């Protein structure tokens, strides 16, 4: 059965690594629903957060194939209940709509969004949350004419007490001393 998975992929920060990672998805016809890259808590280690719809078997095999890349350090696979995750959305609406009554301001407050910038022509609203939440706000704001809407890739941290990456790196070091 297909379900949503979030992959946390840790790698060295080299040119072209994103391409290395995404070709593994492409080759297996697994669509990337959302993608975010940034530096991790450890300097020099990059984190990719990827959301896919796939079966458990598909995603486990996918993870091993990604880990096979020499510059990839580790891949962790999570289901939604194992992580805390957020996405950020920006909405651009005409300022004129704001001036005709206070409905937009009410929506912004109700949805925990905020106004980032107001000019005479347009207003930019920001909301952080799960995808269904940012989508809901979009649908409501669109009654007033959203001229631009964009949602970021998912970012996620685990709910675990222990830190998987740190433990993995420690294990790597232990293993290497064993082999030495």
């Amino acid at each position: 059965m297909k379900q949503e998975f979030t992959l946390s992929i840790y790698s060295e920060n080299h040119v072209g690594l994103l391409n290395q990672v995404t070709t593994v998805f492409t080759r297996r016809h697994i669509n990337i629903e959302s993608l975010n890259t940034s530096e991790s808590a450890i300097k020099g280690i990059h984190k990719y957060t990827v959301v896919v719809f796939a079966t458990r078997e598909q995603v486990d095999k996918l993870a091993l194939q990604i880990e096979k890349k020499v510059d990839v350090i580790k891949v962790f696979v999570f289901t939604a209940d194992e992580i805390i995750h957020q996405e950020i959305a920006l909405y651009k609406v005409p300022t004129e709509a704001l001036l005709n009554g206070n409905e937009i301001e009410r929506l912004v407050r109700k949805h925990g969004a905020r106004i980032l910038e107001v000019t005479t022509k347009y207003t930019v609203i920001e909301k952080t949350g799960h995808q269904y939440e940012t989508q809901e706000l979009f649908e409501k704001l669109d009654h007033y004419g959203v001229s631009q809407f964009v949602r970021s890739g998912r970012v996620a941290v685990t709910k675990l007490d222990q830190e998987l990456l740190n433990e993995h790196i420690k294990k790597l070091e232990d293993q290497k001393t064993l082999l030495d």
Partner: protein
Amino acid sequence: MSLETLQITFKEDKEMGTDNIQKKRMTGSEAVMQSLIHEGVKMIFGYPGGAIMPIYDALYDYHSQLHHILTRHEQGALHAAQGYARATGDVGVCFVTSGPGATNAITGIADAQIDSTPLVVISGQVASPLLGTDAFQETDVVGISQPITKWNYQVKNVEEIPEAIARAFYIARSGRPGPVLIDITKDAQFAELDFEYKKVEKIRSYIPVTKTDEEKVAEAAQLINLAKKPLVLVGQGVILAEAEKDLMSLLEKTGMPAAWTLLGMSAMPTDHPLNVGMLGMHGNYGPNIKTNDADLIIALGMRFDDRVTGNVQKYATNAKVIHFEIDPAEINKIIYADVPVLGDIKESLPMLVEKVAANKHEAWVEEFRACDRIEDEKIIKNELYPTKEGLTMGEVVRRVTEQFNDEAILVTDVGQHQMMASRYFKFKHSRSVVTSGGLGTMGFGLPAALGAQLGQPDRAVCVFVGDGGFQMTIQELGTIWQTKAPVKIILLNNNFLGMVRQWQEMFFDKRYASTELINPDFQMITRGYGIACEKVEKREDLDGAIKRMAETDGPFLLEVVVEKEGNVLPMVPAGAAVNEIRLE
């Protein structure tokens, strides 16, 4: 050296202190030569061109240490390097230029990737300011080769050359081997650096070999001790790990029968009483049909390719599976492993041998021999001792291996002759086969044989090619002639793309679409290249011609006109179960 440069050298030496006094000023191109020498490279296969000319210029001064083989096409250079690597166990090294040079190398890189062959390919690239401008002979070879290399890297800064090459060799040869491409811009080849070489022995993000879990080995031993009908599957992993002796110890202690994949061929002697033959689509009857009778499969360094498993839903239906494997991504990829044993088989097999109980499986092995008698009667007898007039591929293969006392290295191209050679060539020694398994690259054979011969000058190298594949890289006859490599080429000519024709006959109602060839005079072509040759059309001429071929000091081409519409049997049709193997 001018006074000015002398002064600079002196100043630098003083600044760097005594520790770095070893550092030598040189160009990036010379650094490539020095790095290769540090890695123990003796031979390079390649083809020059604009973007790699500085490297070739540096090579000019190193010809006594680095022997360069100029092939006639970059694809030939790659396959020759593969042949060299597979026959010697060393890393094969190639030089190619940018653009078409690099793209011509792609087929060989892909072939090496899927067959786990260690290669380091160094490609020239346009100067760094021109990158991304569609410059003359610019291609994004790093992007193109990314999915088919174990690792690749573009060097734009001359200082990176030694480390990039050190990493390349470490990655290519460690763990599950594979091809690595290093793309070096022309300006980096010209620029200078203070050269110092440090071998790479660790990369943080890369675990080449997992340490074997002794508990898993114990679990495997327990399953083996309880099994009534165990079957060992031998893959190339055994050869790559040089664990052939450990394999023999395992078989001889437990009495388990062992079958082999195409790339596991020659890991054990053909005539060993526990060797029950080849697996897969055109493998032997016994190991295929008995896979579904076995109660335990012990897979050693093999990856359950679809040509081995047939229909995976109906594969090894009564068996538990133990999988010894170096690559974690292979575990459960195709066939679920009840007991996976990750790690280097050179480490894990001796552990297993120690833990298993001495045993015999005479009745079970006899079941394979009973299958052999059926296969012999229905197929092998007719192939090796035909009563019909036309020569068969099988009889030619068998006469050739016998002429070389079963001690030659077998190289093949791809197609019917490849399967016939695999079925009927015989082996006494390991590391005696070079064939394109995973990719099935027609045109592989001739250049691969050249590389194998140059890597193993004291062994006889016999390459079987069909009339189709031969013409894909026929120009490498020129390289064979130039190097005088005494390769014995056996051209099995049926004027057909035989394997495709066989499938058309069996599965496409004999609609022979674009498979019949009107061939040139191969004798005239071969003579044009200065290579000795003979053509045999009748059975009574075969033995004499093979003997003359074997007695020729240099290269030789023996063309044998074989039956036009011979088929390779048995056959597990694509999608069928292994025990649905067809004898006719």
